[in-house]
């Protein structure tokens, strides 16, 4: 019985391998020689971690890589530890990382690290995560106007919970404060899940969570999405307008990208690019993107580097405005 099943598995693996071979059509030039270090720039259980483990499992399930991706979380210093680890990687051909927007801000805020992100190897932008403005249902608020009125009335006692200090959530809070003349109090928490819980328990008045962080409470009707920081309305939240529609031209995304260590050989980079392009096209990834309202197309190579440079300039300007640089 078990040998039979093993044969079956072998057969499936072989045919999949052949299919992959047929698709790429080129003889594999470079193959990993050992397990690939898959650094995650965030802690266990968070959004980036969940996504990284999904990517790993898609690769593993389809046997697209001859050696496994072995994930390691390096959340220290808002990603500083992960960036330095990549910069100093002894074997850049076997070191890749899942990254987010602290990829731009952390090297700016901690210049002592000596990290230059343009030296890193762009592999693939897998998605852009979105942000929405959320309130608890008990507040009775259903649109941005009511939100602004309530927050204005509460003044400094209006609590906005967010992830980390001087990171995405605070950038958005500062935008809202400036755009609507509010004085909300920003309280940093350690992860998006904790933030979502503060709102659901009525310990905070509003948040700017990703859809994936709020989906459970949203589905249960505990929390309400008021508006999105996106270009177009999200399929999952048809009633939430974008801030663009409301006349405030502000769009903000969180990149979900895979980056290679600086100094990675061109052959290895090509291998990872092909690997993650395959993952991007997989039905599992498409399903996950849809479920989490992820946006953004696949970006690779020079296009991804150009995107980083553009985003870095935007973040530098934002941090300067906040007085954090």
């Amino acid at each position, binding site marked *: 019985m078990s040998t039979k099943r093993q044969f079956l598995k072998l057969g499936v693996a072989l045919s999949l391998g052949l299919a992959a071979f047929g698709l790429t059509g080129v003889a594999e030039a470079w193959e990993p020689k050992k397990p690939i270090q898959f650094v995650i720039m965030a802690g266990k259980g968070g959004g980036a971690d969940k996504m990284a483990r999904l990517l790993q*499992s898609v690769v593993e399930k389809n046997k697209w890589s001859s050696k496994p991706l072995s994930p390691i979380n390096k959340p220290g210093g808002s990603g500083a530890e992960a960036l330095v680890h990549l910069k100093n990687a002894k074997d850049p051909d076997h070191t890749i990382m899942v990254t987010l927007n602290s990829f731009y801000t952390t090297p700016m805020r901690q210049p002592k690290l000596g990290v230059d992100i343009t030296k890193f190897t762009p592999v693939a932008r897998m998605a852009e995560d979105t942000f929405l403005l959320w309130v608890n249902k008990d507040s009775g608020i259903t649109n941005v106007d009511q939100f602004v009125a309530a927050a204005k009335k509460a003044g400094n006692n209006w609590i906005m919970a967010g992830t980390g200090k*001087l990171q995405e959530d605070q950038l958005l809070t500062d935008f809202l404060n400036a755009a609507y003349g509010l004085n909300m109090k920003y309280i940093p*928490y350690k992860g998006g899940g904790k933030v979502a*819980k503060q709102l659901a328990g009525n*310990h905070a008045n509003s948040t700017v969570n990703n859809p994936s962080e709020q*989906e*459970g409470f949203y*589905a249960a009707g505990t929390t309400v999405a008021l508006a999105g920081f996106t270009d177009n309305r999200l399929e999952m939240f048809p009633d939430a307008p974008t801030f663009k529609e409301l006349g405030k031209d502000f769009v903000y995304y969180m990149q979900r990208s895979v980056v290679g260590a600086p100094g990675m050989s061109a052959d290895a980079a090509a291998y990872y690019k092909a690997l993650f392009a395959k993952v991007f096209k997989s039905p599992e990834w498409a399903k996950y993107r849809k479920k989490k309202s992820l946006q953004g197309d696949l970006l690779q190579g020079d296009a991804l580097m150009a995107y980083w440079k553009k985003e870095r300039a935007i973040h530098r300007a934002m941090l300067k405005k906040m007085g954090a640089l």
Partner: protein
Amino acid sequence: MEILGHLLDGFLVAFEPLNLLLVVIGVAVGLFIGAMPGLGSVNGVAILLPMTFLVPPTSAVIFLAAIYYGAMYGGAISSIMLGIPGASTAVATTFDGRPMALKGLADKALIAAALASFFGGTISILLFTGFAPALAHVALDFGDPEIFALMLLAFATFVGLGGDDIPKTIFSICIGLVFSSVGMDIISGEPRLVFFDIIGFMHGINFLVLAIGIYGIGEMMWTIEVTRGNPKMSEAVVTVERTVSALRELLSTWKTALMGSVLGFFVGILPAAGATPGSLMAYGVAKMTSRKPEEFGKGEVAGVVAPEAANNAASTGAMLPMLTLGIPGSPTTAILLGGMVIWGLTPGPRLFLDETEFVWGLTASLYAANLFAVVINICFIPVFLWMLKMPFTVLAPIIFVLCLVGGYAPTQDMHDIWLMLGFGVGGYLLRKLDYPLAPAVLAIVLGPIAEPALRQSLMISNGDFSIFVTRPISGPITIIAIILIFLPVFQFIRKRSKKNAEAGSI
């Protein structure tokens, strides 16, 4: 009645051959992962997560729950046998489990731990079955002031833990709390206490690095020195007679076990708390309510029963907010949550309505996992005891090697290994001068929960401390905690003045 019907359906799911097989394998794997110093249920669940995509979601979560349960049992094994807590949840088990093993009562300690875990597991699953959706909302009511009050209570139940030397005990608590603040200050967003700009301090000082250093290296060196390299701890044997007498003695601790189970379950439900504070508080309460508190720390069986019942109960409790609200109560449940999302299940209140097969299959498999864990665990006790019979010069280097790989596994950073050696040597030198070290280990676990909660609370209240006593839940907890903290101080002063009075009269 409806619940019973669902549960029956659940058992039919759990006892499908594939699921039953997964429960048995999961428990056995979990037991070994948990018994390994440095690896706990988080590692087991995280690492085996990708392998579960081969089976249907219900089977997958049953498998992971079995690993989770097995690892909770396994944590006690390394606490008792090696004196190294395999995970933070098993710290309190070392306090009395280790002395029991040194007295040649390792078999009794292991049986006590296994049965207490079983008891705690059973009580908590009963509570889970009966009250799951209703209890979930308790978790949401806990904001920052409540969490800080709870941490205060955890410390309070532990004031009596240290030795007789008060300044050294306070010193130990404080150094643990200071070490826990190394890394990133999330409130100000600044790196903090990054000594000599060494990048490895950026991720903070992992609890396991301190615990393995102190218990795995420092305590081992101390044992070698004190016993001149020949400790006698291999006398435990398993005989029917001994087992029966152990069971008889265990029967008398049922009240402690019940207290530990209920306390553990409720603390486990609360987000951010998890099983570690639950087991510590159960130990503290057991000591406080015991008729012979002076026996605690010297090998009292109730000191093993209380934390073990509590940590297993808490691990079930932690699943509750995860399933019903999508809030993980511990790192392990956070990973389980991630898994559920990947399988296409959305945790939240609707889960109990939409996915009844999944929910009740899981609940039933918790009963099954609990039963198999206790059976497998007890069957392995002779094997563990045989390991202890090895000469110490064989056991010691193997433990050191386990510490090395176990210390490396969580962060995969050699920096942490050097730090571990430093803590081991420092711990050994301080241990010789009667500095109690357990408070430091506790402090490094609770510190990262307590400090942000304190500061976030004060931000909410604009810096007003009254927030801790004026809120309906945090108020009573804070007041009880403060009374408990000052109780020993009053006792100490009274004893002092009595002594002085006596001295004066002579």
